[in-house]
């Protein structure tokens, strides 16, 4: 019931904020097509809330320029996503498209935005094609390239001295990319790879295989509910103490930790951001987010916030001109003069981030499970596809 009221109030506040924004200057329209329903809905929710937090900090402005943020739910369905973006472009005439969570939506909507000549700034999904061959001058990614956190897991596993790894992923593209990313930087031996059905719930059979294979560590990329199920069952089977669990940050966000409880203890994960990163921007973000939403932000919320801050910096530089001064706005985005909550941040030539990566460990603190940074595993990391991109 409290949730219900919150939702109601939240949307009302948003509505008022938007109404206030329109006085002085024609606001810059930002279209946010994101995933709010289905099991992956909390990802989109956090991206949206992180983004709107930044807008609210400036009372409906970004970089001193009034903005109007249109948020719509794609339901993780590319067909719906396409319709929404079509409407954003034709009717609402947005200047910037952002918000996409999943990699089955971005290849559909990003080309639409680019063809239309507006800017596409991703707060999450970043498939390899757009980092390499298909990179585009108006296409920016604030989060990471899809492989990045898996690569970091490979580095982390190597640094922690693991020699024998077993890998697990769903039998689909992102799963295979994840394992490829891990293997790119892992120096030990991969003793087995298990592919499971997308959306699988019960992992008894796989866990038995892992028990029999006796790996030193397991790397898995099971998105959303799949990962929660797997972790619970893995820990119940008593395997956590025999084979360490190394995952990319997606599989150990705060929501997932809350859902698996004590079973999560000791999981090693990678991320470009964590709440205990000590910088002013992060402090401000955490304070604002916790007080406004009364919950812990996930890395997705941090990415939404960073996306808004990047846009703010560029708007400030061009004085609110986006489509009127595309070259100027593009240059301003490229220089990325904003204080990222992750600290060190700049764009590579393919307009994907160059940033530092960390490994974290799950610990229990004040009765709450949380990630604690163990160490930095990469400084100024950039993705593997940048060479294929023609932009300089």
């Amino acid at each position, binding site marked *: 019931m409290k949730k219900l009221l919150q939702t109601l109030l939240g949307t009302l506040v948003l509505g008022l904020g938007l109404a206030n924004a329109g006085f002085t200057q024609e606001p810059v329209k930002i279209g946010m097509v994101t995933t709010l*329903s289905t099991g992956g809905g909390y990802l989109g929710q956090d991206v949206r809330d992180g983004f709107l937090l930044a807008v609210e900090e400036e009372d409906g402005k970004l970089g001193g320029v009034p903005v109007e943020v249109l948020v719509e739910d794609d339901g993780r369905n590319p067909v719906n996503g396409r*319709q929404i973006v079509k409407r954003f472009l034709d009717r609402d005439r947005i200047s910037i498209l952002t918000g996409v969570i999943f990699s089955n939506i971005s290849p559909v909507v990003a080309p639409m935005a680019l063809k239309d000549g507006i800017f596409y700034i991703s707060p999450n999904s970043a498939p390899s094609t757009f980092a390499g061959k298909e990179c585009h001058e108006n296409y920016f990614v604030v989060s990471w390239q899809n492989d990045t956190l898996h690569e970091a897991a490979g580095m982390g596993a190597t640094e922690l001295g693991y020699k024998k790894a077993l890998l697990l992923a769903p*039998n*689909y593209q992102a799963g295979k990319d994840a394992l490829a990313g891990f293997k790119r930087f892992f120096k030990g031996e991969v003793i087995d790879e298990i592919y499971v059905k997308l959306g699988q719930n019960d992992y008894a059979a796989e866990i038995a295989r892992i028990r029999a294979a006796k790996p030193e560590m397991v790397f898995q990329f099971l998105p959303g509910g799949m990962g929660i199920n797997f972790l619970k069952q893995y820990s119940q089977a008593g395997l956590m103490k025999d084979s360490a669990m190394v995952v990319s940050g997606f599989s150990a966000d705060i929501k997932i930790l809350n859902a698996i409880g004590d079973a999560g203890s000791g999981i090693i994960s990678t991320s470009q951001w964590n709440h205990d990163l000590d910088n002013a921007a992060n402090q401000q973000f955490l304070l604002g987010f916790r007080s406004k939403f009364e919950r812990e932000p996930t890395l997705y919320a941090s990415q939404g916030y960073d996306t808004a801050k990047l846009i703010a910096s560029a708007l400030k530089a061009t004085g609110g001109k986006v489509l009127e001064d595309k070259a100027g706005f593009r240059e301003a985005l490229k220089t990325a003069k904003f204080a990222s909550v992750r600290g060190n941040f700049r764009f590579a030539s393919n307009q994907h981030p160059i940033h530092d990566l960390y490994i974290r460990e799950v610990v229990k603190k004040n009765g709450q499970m949380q990630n604690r940074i163990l160490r930095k595993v990469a400084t100024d990391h950039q993705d593997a596809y940048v060479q294929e991109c023609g932009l300089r």
Partner: protein
Amino acid sequence: MMVSENFEARLMLGVGILLIGFPWFADWLDEPYLVSTASRIWIYALAAMSLNLLVGFAGLVSFGHSAYVGVGAYVVGILAWHQYEETNFLGLPGTLEGFISIPFAMIVSGIVALGIGALCLRTRGIYFIMITLAFAQMLFYFFVSLEQYGGDDGLMMMDGRNKIPGLDLGEDRQMYWLSLVALGLATWFLRRLSMSRFGMVLHALRQNETRLKAIGVPPYPYMLVAFVIAGALAGLSGALLTNHMEFVSPDFLHWTRSGDLLIMVILGGIGTWTGPILGAIVFLLLEEFLPLLFQEIGLYLFSEHWRLVFGPLLIGIVLFAKGGLHALVFKQMKGVDGAFAN
């Protein structure tokens, strides 16, 4: 019965001709994106129409019809991908030529429907519902595991839509006209089909299969041919859908998509001509505009959770609106006859 059906056909033809002008109307409204929405509606209406051949005419409730839409969609997608990558598929080069890949999509969907139908049609009733679902699920997982063609993420048409001489499909209006014409032709074809000897057998099949056997007509081959025709038309709609989206993914084959198609048919009026089209229009408009509507009138809770309204609406239609929208629209016009426009 004859008079009123003819009236309905003339009405459809008239409205169809008027709809050619819709893009200009959308311009006048200054809402050009509506053209794209409308194309999508015609494409889904075509799929619903093909499903109606099975459900409404032959009395075969297929719960896996999105499989054939998906197969047709993938044929166009895969051919375009090979063209882009300049590779071969089973020794054949890829292509972006619409007049090759769209008919090819129909043929492949038809062949798949032939294989699946040959097996499914050995069962009836609830078993038929379930076995068609089973085959659709198999195809869904097949495409999910099809790594070369993007697996779960799907496949983009990197070079844009198909090329058809004299048409520029990259332009949304021309895509719209192609979809509308395809729907019109399919409707015309199905109407002729329904009035032919073959159609008589299908209608008879739905009404009384036992009797049909007793007059010496074996139902199986007729059902199979109907299944193949429905599959091929679904393939056409899939081919258009890929073109419209410039993208194809296993999501096109998900079992809930089959459910959506069934809803369109029922919502519009099962076994009628305008039914599937009305159903597609209302279903897709609700899906797209219900959230916006609630936002406009200030019911923010429902704008995010519009399914809370949509679900009961669906139940209400099933429970209380027998004959669907078709009955609602045409009953007044036709008087008593309308109740029996089969």
